[in-house]
């Protein structure tokens, strides 16, 4: 079924400047930290200094007497609050209840143990130092495989194991594929734990009106309605009396699509104290206690024939979930996603995978842009590079040989994903052409003669997007997912679009307005997009998983289409013409072939709202419509190629070029697509070369500041060249596909692949990332233990 097309006018597909940017660039945007209320007090959390310890007692008497302190709360004060749990209904998935403030045990360094409320944050931090916690340190386990071993220290004694999920899935006949193979190749890869580092950290503020019994809660969140639902549930406040507002939000990347214990504590305190309570997370807390990401241990095997045909795959994906199987989507959020997308855009009919989720004494793992997929994709692509080297095949040619062609789409993968459309081979070829691949290979050979090591990494990808109910099921997280938009042409002819999706940097105020403006034939400046306030936005899930262009865009298109019909109906009556003969453009409705017979949108709106003679009896006078959308699954694709030069004496890597070819179907705004790719690739460069959350054996985070947790900066990220292909989805409204994550899904493989390709003469061996200078030298045997 081909879905509804969106009328195309002046706006869709154009590099429109982001309408929200002036307020961000001039400092006029108001973030959580900018908000102030009368009588507001500040929270500071007391956090566990141990990775694993029993809490024998807490003495808050000194803290309560410290200057400016309003309250000090521990678990005993909030014991009536239910624990946090993940919502994923999968058989065999064990639950790991997390108390809002730790009870008898702490399971990661940074876990909240108590909270101090004081007149300002300085005083709150002073008093937090006076809270005396009597800890009995316990042996910690900080490695997922060690946590699976018999006799490992247990995080949850009552579960009897640190393994919260362990299932094997078989697709096709993998045993036969491996029996028929000429060669079997194996790879182990321990992907590094790294994390979203939004410029704005987490934060929230609660204010309770005892007269009305209403809680107003501001939070730097990606999902206002889901947060409202949770707060109502946890605090026992009727949901209609909870209002969640997300002010300007400075990035999320998945870290803010979850319910945090700090949020519940602050909301509880606002009601408990009858004073507004605010908590702004600092960077140290963010590194310690916001969700981490990406860490898995993956064992991968490929069955291959001598001519380079891929026959089947086997994988074991072990997710290191940290201290709790967290409520984002459980500790499966990494390994389940990795396992099910492992075939990627290749022809793989036979596949077996064991998916394991483990808890360890580290910060909980949640979603981070391309969750799960980054690790699985990186393991597979690095294995493919090794296979090509072993078989003497060009790595790009090996990939192309096994890649799905356009004429094979739509294609149902062995794991059940339905690839609706795409340009896999075309994207690979376009990316190779952009870097002049053959000339680069010649240059590589020439430089090797001079002792210089240039490498090329090729990383073609397919990216699940449009997180509705169907794709959620296909990628392994069965949970209904849909959204709403309300589009209104006001009596003055101006347009208000209210959406349940959420913008925390993506530019939805521009892209969603572009869709409404084209459908309603109005100027972009006449459209305002509202979101982020449960009092004004229709109900929906918020923004995560590259879903807003498709779902938010789809809801806006559907609602605007309904309003367009209302406009044309009214205009037909005013102009005494058949609505089918009317043209809507540039803010005016005119009769086809008779452009002087016309009415402006404003004239039509005034008539609709205030002139009863243009309406049939009982007809709705408002030009407004609310529509939901739960799309079918759609998959974007692309290819990233990275050129790197490696100093084989020091192990340092210099990235010479990055090219990304992206196909996200109908492109709403190429400039915004470019921005998504640039940001995601920068994060991928960080993951491949720099960012690593390192713990010692006792569970201490050793990279607790930006001095040691190394984000790439402008000096590490080279210019990124982006090219667009456009294969509209046949199954979504307007042919739109999402595209927020491909850059981080695929770039670490391209970067690491380029480094290892450069060092091919040394036969490099790598089992872990990131590729620090030392790991590079060890991979080629220049230093040894």
């Amino acid at each position, binding site marked *: 079924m081909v879905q509804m097309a969106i009328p195309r006018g002046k706006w869709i597909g154009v590099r429109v400047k982001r309408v929200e940017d002036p307020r961000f660039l001039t400092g006029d945007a108001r973030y959580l930290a900018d908000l102030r209320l009368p009588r507001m007090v500040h929270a500071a959390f007391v956090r566990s200094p141990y990775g694993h310890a029993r809490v024998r007692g807490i003495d808050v008497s000194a803290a309560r007497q410290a200057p400016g302190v309003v309250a000090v709360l521990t678990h005993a004060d909030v014991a009536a609050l239910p624990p946090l749990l993940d919502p994923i209904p999968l058989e065999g998935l064990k639950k790991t209840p997390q108390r809002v403030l730790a009870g008898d045990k702490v399971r990661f360094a940074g876990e909240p143990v108590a909270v101090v409320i004081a007149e300002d944050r300085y005083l709150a931090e002073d008093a937090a130092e006076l809270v005396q916690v009597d800890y009995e340190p316990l042996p910690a386990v900080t490695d997922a495989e060690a946590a699976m071993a018999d006799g490992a220290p247990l995080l949850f004694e009552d579960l009897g194991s640190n393994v919260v999920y362990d299932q094997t899935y078989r697709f096709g006949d993998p045993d036969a594929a491996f029996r028929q193979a000429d060669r079997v190749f194996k790879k182990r890869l321990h992907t590094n734990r790294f994390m979203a580092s939004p410029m704005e950290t987490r934060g929230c503020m609660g204010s309770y009106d005892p007269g009305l019994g209403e809680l107003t809660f501001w939070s730097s969140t990606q999902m206002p309605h889901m947060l409202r639902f949770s707060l109502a549930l946890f605090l026992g406040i009727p949901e209609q009396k909870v209002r969640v507002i997300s002010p300007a939000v400075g990035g999320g990347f998945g870290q803010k699509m979850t319910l945090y214990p700090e949020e519940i504590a602050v909301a509880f305190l606002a009601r408990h104290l009858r004073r507004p309570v605010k908590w702004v997370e600092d960077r140290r807390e963010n590194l310690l206690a916001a969700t981490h990401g990406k860490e898995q241990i993956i064992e991968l095997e490929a069955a291959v024939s001598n001519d380079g045909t891929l026959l089947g795959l086997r994988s074991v994906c072990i997710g290191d979930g940290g201290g709790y199987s967290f409520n984002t989507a459980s500790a499966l959020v990494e390994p389940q996603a990795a396992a099910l997308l492992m075939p990627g855009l290749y022809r793989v009919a036979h596949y077996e995978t064991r998916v394991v989720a483990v808890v360890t004494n580290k910060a909980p793992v949640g979603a981070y842009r391309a969750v799960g997929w980054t690790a699985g994709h990186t393991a597979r692509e690095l294995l493919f590079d090794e296979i090509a080297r072993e078989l003497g095949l060009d790595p790009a040619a090996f990939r192309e040989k096994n890649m799905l062609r356009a004429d094979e789409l739509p294609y149902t993968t062995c794991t059940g994903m339905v690839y609706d459309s795409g340009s896999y081979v075309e994207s690979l070829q376009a990316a190779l052409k952009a870097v002049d691949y053959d000339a680069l290979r010649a240059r590589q050979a020439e430089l090797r003669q001079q002792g210089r090591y240039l490498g090329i990494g090729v990383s073609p990808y397919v990216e699940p997007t449009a997180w509705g109910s169907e794709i959620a099921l296909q990628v392994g997280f069965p949970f209904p997912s849909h959204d709403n938009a309300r589009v209104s042409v006001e009596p003055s002819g101006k347009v208000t679009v209210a959406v349940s999706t959420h913008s925390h940097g993506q530019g939805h105020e521009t892209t969603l307005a572009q869709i409404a403006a084209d459908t309603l034939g109005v100027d972009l400046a006449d459209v305002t997009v509202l979101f982020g306030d449960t009092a004004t936005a229709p109900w929906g899930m918020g923004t995560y998983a590259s879903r807003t262009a498709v779902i938010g865009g789809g809801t806006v298109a559907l609602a605007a289409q309904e309003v367009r019909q209302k406009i044309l109906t009214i205009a037909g009556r005013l102009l005494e013409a058949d609505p089918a003969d009317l043209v809507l453009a540039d803010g005016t409705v005119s009769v086809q072939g008779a452009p002087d017979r016309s009415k402006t949108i404003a004239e039509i709106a005034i008539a609709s709202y205030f002139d009863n003679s243009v309406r049939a009896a009982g007809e709705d006078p408002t030009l407004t419509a609310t529509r939901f959308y739960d799309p079918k699954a759609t998959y974007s694709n692309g290819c990233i190629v990275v050129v790197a030069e490696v100093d084989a004496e020091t192990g340092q890597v210099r990235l010479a070029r990055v090219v990304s070819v992206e196909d996200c179907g109908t492109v709403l705004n190429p400039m915004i697509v470019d921005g998504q790719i640039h940001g995601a690739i920068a994060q991928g460069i960080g993951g491949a070369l720099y960012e690593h959350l390192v713990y010692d054996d006792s569970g201490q985070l050793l990279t607790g500041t930006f001095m040691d947790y*190394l984000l790439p900066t402008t000096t590490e990220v080279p210019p990124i060249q982006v090219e667009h292909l456009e294969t509209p989805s046949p199954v979504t409204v307007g042919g739109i596909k999402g595209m927020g994550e491909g850059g981080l899904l695929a770039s670490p493989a391209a970067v690491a692949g380029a480094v290892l390709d450069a060092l091919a003469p040394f036969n490099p061996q790598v089992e872990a990332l990131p590729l620090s200078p030392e790991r590079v030298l060890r991979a080629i045997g220049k230093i040894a233990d």
Partner: protein
Amino acid sequence: MKPPSFDYFDPTTLDEAVALLAQHGSDAKVLAGGQSLVPMLNLRLARPAVLVDLNWVAGLDYVRAENGHVAVGALARQRAVERAAEVRQRQPLLGEAIRLIGHPAVRNRGTVVGSLAHADPAAELPAVAVALGAELVVAGPSGRRVVAADDFFVSYLTVDLAPDELLVEARFPALPARTGWAIAEVARRFGDFAVAGVVATLTLDAQGSATDARIGLFGVADRPLRATAAERALLGQPPDDARIAAATEAVRAALVDAPTDVHASGAYRRHVAGVLVGRALSEARQRAQAAG
């Protein structure tokens, strides 16, 4: 990340500043550029009861060429020193070393003298001071004294400075004739503290033999080191590749206890310090030959 409370003083003369230090002793910390101290305050790693802010003291922000050296005052910002004509002409190694510190925003505030007093062993400037034989001028209640850089750096973040003393000036000797120089480092990202780094100067006579060799190492010990054995291996001969290789081996032999942290092991530091010594000496040799 809020500092504990402290008292703040903003003296306008050096005598006042020294008097405040004499009064508060080890309870006090001196604030100049604040690029290390302020983060340490916010992380509550430093908890001084008193901050003595030098920024209001007049006449300390100079860079002067005098008596065969470049003198840098306690409030001269790194960016200003990096760009100063006196530095470019007389001691280009100093300017090049500063370029590797952080980013311009950091260097606009950070001071050269503050970096020396802070004495992070992975910082560039302490190694430059040690390698060049800089003189450090210390003011205290009983007047001024001059300390050789070699004696000044004691260990990690620890220098020869009493609680009531203040480092007020650093004097970097001008580069002699027929002298080449180089700085080479491995940092995880541009501007980071070095995992390992080397500064080197090489002075040749008219025949091309080395009459002076100075090698300073940073990031490889608890303080900046002078690689004396490697320097000796170079003297009295033309610094050919074999001599440079010998210097490299001498450096590695001296670094068996190089430290390990999250960014690199001691083994990596030892290996790469050798690589960097080789590269720095080759570059210094080239410059020295060009200068001859």
